[in-house]
């Protein structure tokens, strides 16, 4: 099964879930994302009219008709499907926000129309974004006490008695995890990790000073117009929250009996998420005037309250605001009480912005 078919089948499973309550649904498999920025004048849409059984399993697609709405106005008449797939091509996208939704219908065995809907989704056209080419990024671990802060988070949250060599390895492994979280988050964009600082290189500067205020800070730079900037990551604050406040053990499923590997994953994901987050600000996320950010240029919980969007998720999305980003989401867990992996990621809107500028 190729990648597209795999994704499509996953989508059918998701839509199928709805059927345990409602048996028919208009679904969209192109575009795959349902909240994104485009610089194009038009988009193509494709989907199906699908039936699911009471267990949520997809049963079949129906030939029928579709009509689409954009910003509450119908933009097509009823159009017949091609086989069981409906296609609407070259849907004009106007500058700004476009809310797209639709109706679907098909005739059942007794020749009666069965009606359903295509849920709303958002397409935002922007004319001020262009590719900024490659952004190189350097991790600067040269400051004092960095390794000590990382070691402390291992030593003080596990029953294990570390040898000096194990502690050194712990640091190496946490740094490797930070790197892998970073690479994975920016996969598909033109962001490259390099081994030295220089002109046009963004430096992620790790600090080992004792403090307990910010995890990190970074200059906000919509459209990433200045490539040589510095983000600061304060490992002292991570240590304060994890060890001094004991929040890793108090507020997540982590226990003192966890393995060293588990703790490497926890701490590496925790720090790595903030590294990704801070670079995100310096790439322009999430500017309040241009990208609907709020609460200090972060994903806006309030935006989801009045739009068919999904941009805030308690810290599971990279650019969620700090005070609302739970420590369990930051360490890559779905909840506070059980181990269930949920790696932090960019929401589809942020991802589309990054895809355009890099």
């Amino acid at each position, binding site marked *: 099964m190729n990648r597209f078919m795999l994704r499509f089948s996953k989508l059918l499973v998701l839509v199928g879930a709805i059927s345990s309550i409602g048996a028919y649904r208009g679904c969209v498999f192109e575009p795959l994302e349902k909240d994104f920025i485009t610089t194009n004048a038009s988009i193509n849409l494709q989907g199906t009219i699908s039936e699911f059984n009471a267990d949520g399993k997809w049963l079949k697609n129906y030939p029928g008709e579709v009509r689409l709405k954009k910003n509450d106005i119908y933009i097509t008449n009823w159009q017949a499907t091609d086989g069981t797939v409906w296609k609407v091509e070259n849907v004009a996208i106007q500058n700004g926000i476009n809310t797209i939704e639709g109706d679907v219908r098909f005739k059942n065995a007794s020749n009666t129309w069965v009606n359903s809907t295509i849920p709303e989704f958002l397409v935002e056209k922007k004319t001020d974004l262009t590719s900024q080419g490659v952004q190189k990024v350097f991790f600067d671990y040269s400051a004092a006490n960095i390794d000590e802060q990382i070691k402390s988070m291992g030593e003080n949250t596990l029953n294990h008695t570390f040898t000096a060599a194990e502690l050194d390895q712990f640091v190496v492994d946490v740094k490797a995890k930070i790197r892998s979280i970073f690479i994975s988050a920016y996969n598909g964009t033109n962001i490259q990790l390099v081994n030295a600082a220089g002109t046009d290189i963004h430096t992620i500067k790790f600090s080992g000073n004792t403090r307990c205020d910010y*995890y990190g800070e970074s200059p906000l730079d919509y459209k990433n117009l200045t490539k040589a900037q510095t983000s600061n990551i304060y490992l002292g604050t991570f240590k304060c929250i994890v060890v001094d406040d004991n929040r890793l053990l*108090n*507020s997540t499923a982590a226990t003192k009996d966890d393995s060293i590997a588990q703790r490497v994953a926890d701490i590496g994901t925790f720090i790595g998420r903030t590294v990704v987050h801070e670079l995100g600000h310096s790439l322009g996320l999430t500017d309040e005037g241009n990208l609907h950010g709020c609460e200090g240029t972060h994903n806006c919980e309030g935006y989801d309250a009045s739009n068919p*969007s999904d941009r805030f998720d308690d810290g599971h999305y990279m650019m969620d605001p700090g005070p609302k980003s739970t420590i369990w989401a930051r360490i890559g867990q779905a909840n506070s*009480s059980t181990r269930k992996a949920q790696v932090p990621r960019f929401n589809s809107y942020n991802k589309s912005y990054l895809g355009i500028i890099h």
Partner: protein
Amino acid sequence: MKTLIFFTLLLLGIPAMAVDVPEGGDAIYHQVRNANAVVFATLTSSDKSFLYFNLLKGLNRKMPATFKIGRALAPGHDQLVLKNTATYLLFLKVNRLSERLGIYSLAMGEYSVSPMNRKFMNDYESVISDYMKFRGNNAALAKSLMLHVDKRIPYLQYSAVKDMAMRGMLDETASTELAEKMRNGIIVDPRAKLEIVRKISKFKMTTYTPILEQLIVDNSENVSVKSASLTALDHMGQVEALRRVAPAMLEHRSGRLRRVTIDIVKPRN
């Protein structure tokens, strides 16, 4: 005068910084531990460089009757929009050099400014005093915060609940006490509700299933509270309750609620 001009130029030249703070970093505990001064003050005017305040009361430090806050000394300063004549609770960082010029900075950027109603000034003062008095004594702090929750002042209520959660003070007994307060309509702040819902889920307090259902179907509740309540019902295995509320959530305008509901009801192998 030269020093003032130097400072002003310096402040104008500092770029806006976006920051990542710990969970609950805007609540009182984290603010107090990062601030040298906690004050009530009224904004009188503002310009590109400064916010100008009249002092109403300094809680832990002698402050001048009027003072200004350098916008550039506050991360996120470009987004700091405050109303003239409004009263604020401010958590400040004091630098001796700039203090001689009457200039202060916000301890944690825009997270250190909280609008307040002057008629509740005494309530604010008693809550913040308790934070200072009981610092290092979790049991005493928890006891006082639990009482302060009843004041129904949103920021104070949020801070009390969040700080108890962040300090590991919400065991099953304390969480039940808060859940009862929520059942009795005492909890008015959505973020306080969110924390309590998470505790109901963590301790699998199935008695509160009807409360969760109510939060989910109540149009006035926010998306995060609804989303956490759905997840809590799933975590506690409340299938019947989910069956009742899921259809409306699958049709909800919020993309987040639709996703969360689909994740819960989708068939699992």
